């Protein structure tokens, strides 16, 4: 078991000698309320074995029944990836002996997936479009979670025993498999990452999953092989699992290319195996030797009748698909007149949805963008969370923008209102009310404050009267301080100059 000692070939040399071939398998956990074949809840993070029933525990006499919403999600995912939705398909039993599914088989789809032959165009970092062809998307159930105890660091190897939590067993999964991806050259790692990112955006847009890679609701297995330059036959591939961030997808592909190249250059052969990605080192290490498809002894699931999507129903679902993220981005860029960089920053910050929702709630695009991309982005950074996780909604941001536009708030006050909303003090209007943040627009009270400030600084008044208008700033500052920042500074300045002139 070599790990950190694996030899790696320099990346440039890999590319001089070999062409990479990728195959990406993405598993997405659907956001349905219940599991694929039983009515158990699917919420993440519940105490172990509290979301289980006789069906997902594989107890004798229990029978599965298909979740209709999961089938609809599968069809919508297939359509979004330009797949053909088959008019008839079955589930299949995949038999194996690991205890992560208590039935001793996983209900999946084998040679009759619900969606086949798709294509998905992704946009690489320099704006170039790359077409990924989709082999299939099929329905299956997730496995339970294993905890390996004893031995080293919770790994399966060397463990003395394993502990099983079946809360996740039976959660609906859609597996999306690409056809072999060739012709990427040096960009193979980037293509892999961008593909997963673009797929995540599409799935999020469909609303079928929360697509949280950190929580495992979106998982990528990266198949990588190399063929010598000029060869036409694919080399032996490895499948790297446990790749649970976009950055890791890129690193894992790059590492496997360098590792396999070193093996091949030394006259060795690549072993077809499952490898595990180590987030800390960026290395992969071998896992179990894969069963062959034959070992799984697939056969049609006798406990479930076939699924035959109605053509009209599928057409209706296709018509109701949301605008694809890439098209939406292009439209937003044109509508809001954004540079490529500005758009990319927004997308990378996860701000696009939030900003569009703020605009939909009535805010001008420039203000909506400014709030999310500067003040709120900083706040999210400070808290170490995603923008979308901030406890403020686009509607609330739009309300703050409206209050400023109506003259009810200054920019400074608006930030205080946002702070209040973020602190859980209620809606913007409630924060304005409870913190007493409304702009003092009543001239008579302002005049009183101005007169007070003028009386306190007679020397400044002399300077202003002597023509040093800039000196008025000191008075304005004093008034702003006296009113707790609730006055409109521009109006205060006007009043100061008026009073000095009298």
């Amino acid at each position, binding site marked *: 078991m070599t790990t950190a000692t694996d030899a790696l070939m320099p990346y440039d040399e890999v590319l001089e000698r070999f062409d990479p071939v990728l195959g990406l398998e993405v598993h997405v956990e659907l956001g*349905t*309320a*219940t599991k694929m074949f*039983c*009515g*158990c*809840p699917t919420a993440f993070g519940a*105490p*172990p*074995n*509290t*979301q*289980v*029933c*006789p069906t*997902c*525990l594989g*107890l004798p006499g229990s029978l599965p*029944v*298909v*979740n*209709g*919403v*999961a*089938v609809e999600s599968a069809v919508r995912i297939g359509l979004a990836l330009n797949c053909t939705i088959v008019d*008839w398909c*079955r589930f299949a039993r995949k038999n*194996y*002996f*690991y*205890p992560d599914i*208590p039935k001793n088989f996983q209900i999946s789809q084998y040679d009759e997936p619900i969606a086949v032959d798709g294509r998905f165009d992704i946009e690489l970092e320099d704006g170039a479009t790359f077409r990924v062809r989709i082999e299939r998307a099929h329905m299956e159930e997730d496995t339970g979670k*294993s*905890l*390996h*105890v004893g031995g080293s660091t919770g790994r*399966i*190897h*060397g*463990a*003395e*025993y*394993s*502990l*099983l*939590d*079946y809360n996740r067993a039976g959660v609906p999964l859609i597996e999306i498999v690409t056809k072999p991806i060739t012709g990427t050259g040096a960009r193979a790692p980037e293509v892999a990452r961008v593909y997963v990112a673009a797929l995540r955006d599409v799935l999020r847009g469909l609303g079928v999953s929360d697509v949280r890679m950190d929580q495992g609701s979106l998982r990528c297995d990266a198949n990588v092989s190399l063929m010598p330059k000029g060869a036409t036959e694919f080399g032996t591939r490895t499948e790297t699992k446990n790749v649970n961030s976009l950055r890791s997808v890129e690193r894992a592909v790059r590492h496997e290319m360098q590792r396999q190249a070193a093996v091949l250059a030394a006259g060795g052969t690549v072993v077809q195996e499952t490898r595990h990605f180590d987030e800390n080192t960026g290395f992969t290490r071998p896992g*179990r*030797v894969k*069963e062959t498809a034959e*070992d799984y002894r697939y*056969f*049609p699931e*006798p406990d*479930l*009748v*076939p*699924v*035959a999507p109605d053509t009209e129903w599928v057409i209706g679902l296709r018509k109701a698909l949301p605008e694809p993220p890439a098209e939406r981005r292009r439209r937003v860029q044109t509508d809001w007149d954004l540079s490529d960089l500005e758009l990319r920053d927004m997308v990378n910050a996860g701000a696009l949805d939030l900003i569009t929702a703020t605009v939909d709630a009535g805010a001008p695009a420039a203000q909506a963008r400014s709030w999310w991309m500067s003040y709120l982005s900083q706040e999210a950074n400070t808290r170490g969370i995603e923008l979308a996780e901030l406890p403020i909604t686009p509607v609330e941001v739009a309300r703050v923008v409206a209050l400023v536009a109506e003259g009810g708030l200054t920019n400074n006050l608006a930030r205080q209102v946002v702070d209040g909303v973020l602190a859980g003090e209620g809606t913007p209007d409630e924060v304005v009310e409870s913190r007493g943040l409304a702009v003092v627009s009543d001239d008579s009270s302002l005049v009183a404050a101005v007169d007070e400030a003028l009386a306190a600084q007679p020397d400044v008044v002399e300077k202003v009267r002597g023509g040093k208008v800039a000196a008025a700033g000191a008075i304005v500052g004093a008034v702003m301080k006296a009113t707790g920042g609730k006055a409109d500074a521009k109006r205060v300045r006007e009043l100061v100059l008026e009073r000095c002139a009298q």
Partner: protein
Amino acid sequence: MNTISRDEVAHLARLARLAVTEDELDTFAAQLDVILASVARVGEVAADDIPPTSHAVPLTNVFRADEVRPGLTQQQALSGAPATEDGRFKVPQILGGDE
């Protein structure tokens, strides 16, 4: 002719992590052979015009509403387990040291 070889039985036993002795391999291979031969007789009556049948009832699209139904408590779920720890099912080491 045998429908399953002794080697295939050994392979299945390895996949299932079953420790099967040499003698047992002979016994099981012979027994499985009889079972498989019996099942294979179905093929004798299946003509070319009969498609493989996976379901005896002509039903499709039997779906369930996506509504939560009560399941088991942790205690109930674990009640039949030979061993438990921290609310989880405890099972023997899954892979051998060399796998």
